[in-house]
């Protein structure tokens, strides 16, 4: 690749630095926290419900690091299905696809460490939060590429309408 004929530089506002744009894995020594939260996905419409059963995530990378995936059903994080996916540094771009089950654990009432069963979370809306972490698990990126490809959501509509609040009509 030939050298660029023009490059953008930034001037710092609280210091003397002249910074080259698009270079390195940090901002003048400060980490870069990459984060993406999807719009709500509403497969059964606003009055319906679905079981959200799985996620597929595909990432192409050369950088090391980790990706934390947190699903949210009806704005509540599904903490039993938070995944931290490792990536190791490569010299050539490598594409990884993970299949991630989405489930809520039913725990023993006396000992929360005992999982009695897992079930797919049921709700109206699903959102997915993706965060890029460095090798130490901090919100930062390592040197190299990290390219988020298309994620997919597996779901099953269980009812097209659900009980909703039915306020009494004003007389």
């Amino acid at each position, binding site marked *: 690749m030939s*050298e*660029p*004929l*023009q*490059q*953008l*530089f*930034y*001037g*710092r*506002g*609280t*210091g*003397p*630095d*002249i*910074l*080259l*744009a*698009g*270079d*390195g*894995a940090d*901002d*003048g*020594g*400060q*980490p*870069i*926290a*990459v*984060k*993406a*939260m*999807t*719009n*709500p*996905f*509403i*497969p059964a419409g*606003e009055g319906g419900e679905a079981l959200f*059963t799985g996620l597929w995530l595909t990432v192409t990378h050369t*950088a090391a690091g980790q990706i934390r995936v947190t699903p949210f059903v009806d704005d509540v994080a599904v903490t039993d299905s938070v995944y931290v996916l490792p990536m190791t540094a490569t010299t050539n771009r490598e594409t990884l696809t993970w299949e991630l089950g989405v489930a809520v654990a039913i725990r023993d009432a006396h000992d929360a460490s005992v999982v009695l069963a897992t079930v797919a979370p049921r709700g109206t809306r699903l*959102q*997915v939060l993706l965060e*890029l972490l460095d090798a130490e698990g901090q919100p930062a*990126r390592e040197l190299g*590429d*990290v*390219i*988020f*490809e*298309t*994620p*997919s*959501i*597996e*779901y*099953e*509509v269980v009812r097209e309408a659900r009980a909703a609040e039915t306020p009494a009509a004003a007389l």
Partner: protein
Amino acid sequence: MRQVQRLPFGAGLDRATGLALLSPDGFRDLRNVELTEGRAIARPGMSVQSGLSLGGLGVTPMTDVCALGTYREKAVGIAVGFEQASRKLQLFTLGLTGLNPVYVADVGTVDAAAQRPVVSLAESYRIMAVAHGEPDSTKRLQTMIYNGTTLTGLTADLDGAGAAAVKFRGVVSWLDYLVGWGFGSASQPHEPHTIRVSLPTQPTVFFKTDYFLAGSPTEAVLAVAPVGSTALVFKQTQTYRLIGTDRSDFGIVPLDARYGLAGARLWTHAQGALYGWSLEGPRVWTPNGPSQDLSIPLDLSGPSPADLVAAGEYEDAFACYRHDVQLVEFHFGRRCYVLHLRDPSRPRWSYRENGVELRCAGTLYYGVALVGGGGGTPAAPAGHPVAGSFTHTAGTVTAPYTYTGALGDEAIEVWIKIGAGAWAMKVNRTIANTAGETFVFGEGDGIIPGTLIQVAARFRRGLLFTSGYESTNPSDWPVAARGSATTDAGPSAPTAVHLLDGMQTTYGPKKYNSIRFTWTAGVSGTNSQLLVASLNDPAAASVLWEGPIATTTSPYVGTYLVSATPSYRYFWVRHTMGDGTPGDPTACAENPINVADDLLGTP
């Protein structure tokens, strides 16, 4: 039945659409990514290439980098830096790789009551104009003109009273003209709606008759931005368009009666249009039509993501365009809104959190200088300084240099290194003669007794250095550039310092104390000094008495009023060398002597 929904990345932020119409491939929050079709790429960072320091001496870092740009005539970068304590605004040249800033001259000293400086740069017909964007014309610095060699103030006769300093709020190059705004004349400087135009191809010549008026003076012109063959004039809530190509057909017409720019630098060109940030969010302007709203997906009137970094002020904000990845960036300190234009028919937004606060951006273009103008292409110097035999005392180093092959237009840089410290540039100016010069460094340069002092020197012409002297580490330069000397040990410390006695004098109802000290002299030194301070801080002390080292008792010093509530004074005795180099007052164990002013009895 189980189904699968793909959520392709790349649709960008969508914070405004209601749930019924919401597309699942949009994002509620999207930070620090570059969007392509169906992908989101973790954005790369930004790396520090160099830093500006006050006077280019490498001692006091500048607190703001206010402007960056390319001076294409000379094929150098231009940077303007501001240092808060001294309030100096200074111009530097840069390599086109962002390296090696070289101090040129002061743009001026910013008024203590002026705002944090905003600076605009405009290259027009072989000169670079520098304007201080202070809204208050009484606190604004003179517009400066850099020709590649010197920085001089712009003057013009704009009121018929003779040539006077011109203080434009901003400058821009448009067609064959330099355009400046926000300044009427020396006798009527506050004309915020006036836009002045230079003579064609003569960017430093302004006639008092050549100007546009953009609406009424109640709202100031913030920016003039060329788009195609026209130029748009922005106020905060209005936009005008300059038409014509010369004084025979120049005119100004209203373009947008509602929208303007929120800040003077919140605009940039991208893909044939002008993208700017109005008081109601981002918009795009084309030369002829009304502007179009781009802000809807951002839902700026709604709450931002809770943990998104705070935005800076409009006055400090700026916009820029990343040609390589086709991004328009609106920077508000650490918060940035990024418009992805890889598919111009489908602009998409994301947030960006800058690790450091940004103040400006500029594109540096690689290339060669235009030969034949403004002194032509500078050539690297061929000569070099040669260090002679250094001499020294305890507090000074004298470094003679002879110049080999100097033509007279070279700049000399002299750097010193004190002990194990870092190299620091102490001299950066045009050489005084071609045979050589002698440089003397003293206490003000940080010279201390008994320390190895290294000195190195090189020639510079523009941004070019003699071959072999390019490194910013003088230790890498040829050995002839460097010399060293170890300063003499300083004076020894006195011992057994103590208060000898006191004497009290009564004047009417008041009593005054005088006191004297005695000590044992050290073995080296010429004089002794008695210092006094109201704090236990020798750096804050002043010399109360000085005498030959053979004298080991001070005269009575004072008089100090005796009061009911005593106050205290601290006294130190130290020796000095013949050249004035002082010893360390804390080297004597008895220093300081703490004396209360009721020493000889209360009033």
